């Protein structure tokens, strides 16, 4: 029971690093992708947060990005192994197009996550650890403090740009 | 045992969403409250095994929210 808790913590850290790096790689904090993301970013910056960080958080909400990709990839691997993860990537791609988003953050996130999760399963993780881990990772970014999270993302963004 | 806890939690979500939708004044807040409500309902449908129903409902409820937004926008302008 305690060992499972430890696995979920490690999975959370892996998921956190994975989805943040893919999103920042695809320049999500650069601008609000859709008008809703822009509005959320501006609201967060009005409350003292970083504007680029806020834009990325808005993009996470309004369009399937690497966070959605990683979560659905984890669900896919959970139900059907690597083919399930690839099916999840296809579903995320379709979802992106439905939301008028021309980016590939979600699809690439899902594919990379599928292989990372499958690899981790060889060393003893369970796919369900990654489902819980990804949800916890999103909780830390979107659900605890918007201002602090956006400043953290803004800090990473300045590193990359 | 887990099933009962989950069902209890989902029922709580549904009531929370319904109460929030009724009490909030801003129309956009009310739409968010409906989102809370549907988030509680969909897992209950999945738990009974009606996966195809769950897929249909999960697609239809956001679409109707979008329709409501289109109608709301037209009324104020």
């Amino acid at each position: 029971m305690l060992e499972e808790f430890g696995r979920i913590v490690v999975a959370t850290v892996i998921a956190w690093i994975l989805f943040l790096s893919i999103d920042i790689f695809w320049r999500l904090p650069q601008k609000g992708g859709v008008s809703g993301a822009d509005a959320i970013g501006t609201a967060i910056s009005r409350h003292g947060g970083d504007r680029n960080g806020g834009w990325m958080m808005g993009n996470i909400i309004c369009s399937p990005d690497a966070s959605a990709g990683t979560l659905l990839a984890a669900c896919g691997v959970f139900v059907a192994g690597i083919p399930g993860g690839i099916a999840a990537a296809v579903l995320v791609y379709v979802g992106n197009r439905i939301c008028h988003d021309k980016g590939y953050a979600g699809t690439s996130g899902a594919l990379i996550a599928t292989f990372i999760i499958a690899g981790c399963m060889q060393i003893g993780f369970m796919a369900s650890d990654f489902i819980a881990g990804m949800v916890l990772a999103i909780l830390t970014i979107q659900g605890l403090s918007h201002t602090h999270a956006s400043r953290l993302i803004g800090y990473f963004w300045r590193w990359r740009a | 045992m887990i099933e009962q806890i989950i069902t209890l939690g989902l029922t709580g979500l549904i009531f929370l969403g319904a109460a929030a939708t009724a009490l909030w004044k801003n129309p956009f807040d009310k739409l968010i409250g409906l989102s809370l409500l549907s988030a509680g309902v969909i897992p209950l449908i999945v738990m009974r095994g009606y996966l195809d129903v769950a897929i249909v409902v999960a697609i239809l409820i956001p679409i109707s929210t979008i329709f409501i937004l289109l109608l709301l926008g037209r009324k104020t302008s």
Partner: protein
Amino acid sequence: MSIALYGAARTVLEKETLLKLPFVNVMNFGIAGLIVFILPHPLTLVAAAAYFVGSTLEANAIASAIARRKQE
């Protein structure tokens, strides 16, 4: 499950409408994970994806409608 309820609770407690949306997003992630947990079946993946895309579309529509109303 608990994460979904936490997201819902924070949504109710937050006063500003636009900032409610990140908490709703947390809740939606939680629900998507939950429905795959309670019924491991390949079709559940499609259901979780459909639910998630639906929740993203909905949040996007609400946010852009608020943005458009602020512009007027």
